């Protein structure tokens, strides 16, 4: 049985420019210990999907209007706020892109790493601080135990992200959601942090949802991939199948458009023409149609549903050629 089972998740926002559906009928399953990458560009709905699952959508502008998310026998989307609070940071932990804005600058790092244990596990502060030192050591923060009482500004960007991971691990969550966890970091530090995250999830058996725009990161770390475009999931498959045989024209276009270190340099890139869609003015039919090289007349009127094109490989595209 899946650890997390999301069905028909739909989240809407009211904005100055009109209402928009940021996440539109998204469904997926996540197994124990699995790493799922949710890939997409800005406005694709990948981050809002994560925030919806954590019930961190800013209300009243944003509303989860439909769907369910079954996790350990509970529907996260209909749980009373009180109960949801006991899930967050305990059973499900989240890691954000910019650790400086998610860490409290006036509280020591050790206290922030230890806090979930006090809140969720009834631990004493003394025990929590000792455990925080262990956790910081485990995420290989240099001089961890000596720096339990240090403040976030005394840490480098990579060290802060290590502290965020330590905090996420505090209550041994079954699911970690990491939203662009290394986008703000340099490439050598990115490699360190992602390798650490992967190693720790393997050791603890926690599942990981990795939200990213970087197709290289996905290839290195994900077991399975879900590609989002215009608020909808357009393709999902195992990482190997998706890269070997991309079946949605958007996925295919993305993979063809990026320069790769292992290929002959200088050949002309094949871009996806046009712009990502404006969610307040989505075209009827397929959101990708205006940019799609394979679009037919039917794509203008029919919004394709996610359908299984090969075992375990789903795509939302009317075109059968791919």
């Amino acid at each position: 049985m899946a650890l997390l089972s999301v069905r028909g998740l739909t989240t809407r926002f009211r904005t100055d420019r009109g209402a928009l559906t940021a996440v539109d009928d998204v469904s997926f399953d996540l197994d124990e210990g699995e790493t799922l990458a949710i890939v997409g560009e800005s406005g694709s709905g990948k981050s809002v999907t994560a925030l919806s699952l954590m019930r961190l959508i800013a209300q009243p502008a944003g509303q989860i209007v439909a769907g369910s998310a079954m996790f350990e026998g509970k529907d996260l989307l209909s749980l009373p706020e009180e109960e949801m609070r006991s899930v967050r940071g305990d059973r499900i932990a989240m890691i954000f892109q910019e650790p400086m804005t998610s860490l409290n600058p006036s509280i020591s790092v050790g206290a922030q790493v230890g806090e979930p244990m006090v809140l969720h596990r009834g631990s004493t502060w003394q025990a929590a601080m000792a455990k925080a030192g262990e956790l910081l050591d485990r995420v290989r923060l240099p001089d961890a135990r000596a720096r339990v009482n240090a403040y976030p500004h005394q840490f480098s960007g990579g060290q802060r992200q290590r502290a965020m991971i330590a905090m996420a691990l505090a209550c041994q969550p079954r699911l970690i959601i990491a939203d662009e966890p290394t986008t703000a970091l340099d490439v050598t530090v990115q490699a360190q942090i992602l390798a650490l995250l992967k190693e720790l999830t393997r050791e603890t058996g926690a599942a990981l949802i990795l939200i990213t725009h970087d197709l290289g990161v996905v290839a290195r770390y994900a077991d399975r991939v879900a590609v989002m475009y215009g608020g909808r999931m357009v393709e999902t498959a195992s990482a190997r199948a998706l890269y070997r045989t991309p079946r949605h024209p958007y996925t295919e276009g993305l993979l063809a458009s990026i320069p790769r270190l292992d290929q002959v340099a200088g050949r002309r890139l094949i871009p996806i023409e046009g712009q990502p869609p404006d969610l307040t003015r989505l075209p009827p039919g397929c959101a990708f149609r205006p940019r799609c090289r394979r679009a037919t007349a039917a794509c203008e009127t029919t919004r394709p549903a996610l359908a299984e094109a090969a075992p375990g490989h789903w795509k939302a595209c009317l075109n059968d050629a791919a």
Partner: protein
Amino acid sequence: MPPDAPLLEVADLKVHFPIYRGVIAKQVGAVKAVDGVSFTVNPGETLGLVGESGCGKSTTGLAVLRMLDITAGRVVFDGTDITRHDRAAMRPFRRRIQMIYQDPFGSLDPRMSVAALIAEPMIVHKLAANAAERAERARELLEMVGLRADMASRYIHEFSGGQRQRIGIARALAMKPDLLICDEPVSALDVSIQAQIVNLFQEIQAKFGLTYLFVAHDLAVVRHISDRIAVMYLGRIVEIADRDTLYRAPLHPYTQALMAAVPIPDPEIEATRPQITVQGEVPSALNPPPGCRFHPRCPRAVARCKTEEPQLREATSGQSVACHLV
């Protein structure tokens, strides 16, 4: 000037930012953002400058344009030493050297129409006879960068990130420049848009014979667009080579680590790739390590690396490296 002379020559460039403390503002130190950098860029060529944050790649670009005070060294553009040029003397060079920024929204006035944004440099540098000629040229430039001529009356907030970058490029081209300094010009753009803009850079280079100094952190993009690449670390160039040599046979341990850290978008290749991760993070440029600046993170460092700073020297034809072990 002989035909094979470089368009841009940077020799032992140093840009230090002094740090003052106390009421009498006594200088207590300096951030050595760029600390002895030398390279040349030939006409029509693209030199990529790569490195992580704080390596000095952007500062180098700004210093070439003389937008920062140069502490020491020389910048020679098309045979003229512009290191100590004052504002008036710099003016013709401010036309010939143009800068493309990461975020064109921050560099373009939101109260000016696109036509006015593109026409402004033509007025400043007297590049068109009259308003009609400027307007005509603005429309031409918009089409050249892949926008529609009728977009000239719109304002910058009406455009997406990729379109704004196109407008930034059109404005730069309006000056008929020789050298474009591109500072992370695609890193703020969505993946699907990056390829469009990279292709545009290559098209206009071929069309106008432009020379590029392309500053970026994305190795795959830099490799794609550059003829030669300089890898920077903490204010110094650690390796410089032609593109294919650098990626086929990187010699500096930092270049090797940097390339190993970049994942290749193919899970099957990634599964078999050795995962070498260099430890630690880039130290502060305020207090760089003695000897080789990379030695605290270098997996191969020996005693000599801790005391003696390696100099950049040619290791193979067209490939120079600053490492004691090569």
